């Protein structure tokens, strides 16, 4: 292992001038992406045995990383072409968690749909439920009552907090700051405890459903929320003391995995990756959905497009989310927590005991499901990882004809070969962590 001074001089840092932003040329011609079949790779990896294959004096090698490597955030597999410790080309290999959730979604009714999509991004399940519900509501042409809108916003922002706390934890773990892992998980647990109180589950809530939410906020929710708002901000200050001025932590992130705005746009990267390049784009402000136009918050942008900026943006976004949570708590309107359209919402429990029609109606909604007018719709929300979209096609039946989720991690993973090119293999772990992929969402 080389010492740090040597490392400083040899580390190739891409400046914006060097990378012209034409990611297209870089990807196709420079071989930034490893395009090699597994058979070719095994020949090349075994090149040392057969002198005929040994074209470069044994300096280059293909290294397989994953799919069960602890720092790959699940089952991401990487093929890396190395020269010494430098990554020349790389290729993410995905699909190890592919369970055909889009196909499954075609077999479920619109009411069962959220149970399926919530398992995609398991670190931010409420966003998947939200975007699915928004697409269904757009096809149905129904409105959501204000209280449901605000509950959705409150829960989603808390979910962003828990997701970014999870990132802080795993990012710390990947970089060797193991105490950060414990802290991040500890605070995330506080948020999950609130989720458990409201939705009954810590994850995979099935709480946001077409037409509103599954249940109203329980009595005394403000007390628990105030406690959360008191606990988390001082802990964030602690993280900053712990990490921001830590020379090893800064050294491992600053200047690592650099991408500029043009490249991020070309590679369809969204969320913190795009904002870290200095590009000011957040769907919550720029295409306001729910009630984001009625709350005040800042969009956090970076300047260097490196792994440190992506870390810092996620940390700051926790504070911005807590601002929204605080405002949502104050402004929470009264009223219904779900749409009272009889075609979509089952009758209340009390009516089922009294009315035969209500019983039949209840039975029909939960067995056959409600019918959605034919058409197609795309809804998008700003998930902690970027733009999460849902493309729905209905043929007029009770199941979606086609349910496609535009997963931010899936698109963001395309930046990996670009971010790793020319860097050290030890930095590969920091780069994967800074992209923050959730493999359940990548593979669906």
């Amino acid at each position, binding site marked *: 292992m080389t010492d740090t001074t040597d490392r400083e001089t040899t580390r190739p840092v891409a400046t914006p001038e060097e990378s012209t932003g034409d990611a297209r040329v870089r990807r196709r011609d420079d071989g930034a*992406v490893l*395009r090699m*079949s597994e058979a070719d790779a095994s020949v090349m990896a075994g090149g040392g045995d057969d002198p005929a294959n040994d074209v470069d004096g044994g300096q280059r090698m293909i290294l397989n990383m994953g799919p069960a490597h602890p720092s790959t955030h699940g089952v991401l597999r990487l093929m890396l072409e190395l020269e010494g410790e430098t990554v020349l080309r790389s290729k993410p290999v*995905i699909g190890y968690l592919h369970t*055909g959730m889009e196909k499954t979604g075609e077999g479920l009714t619109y009411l069962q749909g959220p149970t399926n999509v919530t398992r995609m991004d398991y670190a931010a399940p409420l966003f998947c439920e939200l975007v699915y519900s928004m697409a269904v509501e757009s096809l149905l042409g129904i409105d959501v009552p204000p209280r449901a809108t605000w509950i959705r916003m409150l829960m989603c922002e808390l979910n962003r907090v828990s997701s970014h706390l999870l990132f802080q934890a795993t990012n710390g773990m990947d970089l060797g700051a193991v105490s950060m892992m414990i802290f991040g998980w500890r605070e995330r647990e506080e948020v999950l405890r609130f989720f458990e109180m409201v939705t009954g589950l810590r994850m995979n809530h099935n709480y946001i459903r077409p037409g509103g939410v599954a249940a109203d906020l329980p009595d005394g929710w403000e007390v628990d929320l105030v406690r959360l708002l008191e606990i988390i901000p001082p802990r964030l200050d602690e993280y900053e003391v712990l990490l921001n001025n830590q020379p090893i932590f800064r050294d491992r992130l600053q200047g690592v995995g650099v991408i500029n705005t043009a490249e991020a746009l070309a590679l369809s990267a969204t969320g913190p990756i795009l904002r870290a390049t200095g590009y000011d784009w957040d769907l919550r402000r720029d295409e306001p959905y729910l009630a984001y136009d009625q709350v005040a918050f800042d969009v956090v942008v970076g300047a260097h497009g490196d792994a440190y900026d992506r870390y810092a943006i996620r940390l700051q976004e926790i504070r911005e989310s807590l601002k929204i949570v605080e405002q949502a708590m104050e402004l929470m309107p009264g009223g219904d927590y779900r749409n009272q359209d009889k075609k979509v919402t089952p009758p209340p429990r009390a009516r089922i005991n009294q009315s035969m029609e209500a019983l039949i109606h209840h039975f029909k909604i939960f067995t056959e499901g409600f019918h959605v007018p*034919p058409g197609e719709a795309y809804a998008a929300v700003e998930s902690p990882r970027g733009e999460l979209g849902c*493309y729905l096609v209905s043929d007029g039946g009770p199941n979606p004809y086609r349910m496609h989720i535009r997963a931010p991690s899936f698109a963001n993973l395309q930046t990996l070969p670009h971010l790793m090119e020319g860097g050290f293999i030890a930095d590969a772990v920091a780069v994967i962590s800074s992209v923050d992929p959730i493999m359940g969402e990548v593979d669906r």
Partner: protein
Amino acid sequence: MSLPTTPAVRSTVLHPARDELLEVVAGLRNDGYDMVIDLTAVDYVAHPGRTDLPEGVVGERFEVVVSLIHHRSRERARIRVQVPEEDPVVPSLFDLYPGTEAMEREVHDLYGVAFEGHPDPTRILMPEDWDGHPLRKDVAVGTIPVRFKNPTER
């Protein structure tokens, strides 16, 4: 160029023919649509008599759906291209937007629609030796027996 369109929420929906696709996308790129946000496909074989197509557009089995975003004017555009079953080939958008690389591979993998000019037309989600395209409507769920217990006993 006037293309058939359909109304949609917060978006323009264009219906170019397959051979107009590259030209239309290049035009949108020049207009400032700086990102392809999504690329997917739909298999309409089990949905005969659909009525959501504008006049002059003949529905085919596959439809490739491309969503673009114009960040400056905060507009979105959606392109829906009809792709016939006998010849499921679409020109690749990779040279215009390299971010479509993984998305086109996904559509190719799950629908069997080929993208002409794609640099790496391999499977992305399914195993490399997989037979068929699972998101097609003629592939049923649950046709492959899965054994959960005692893999050694028979």
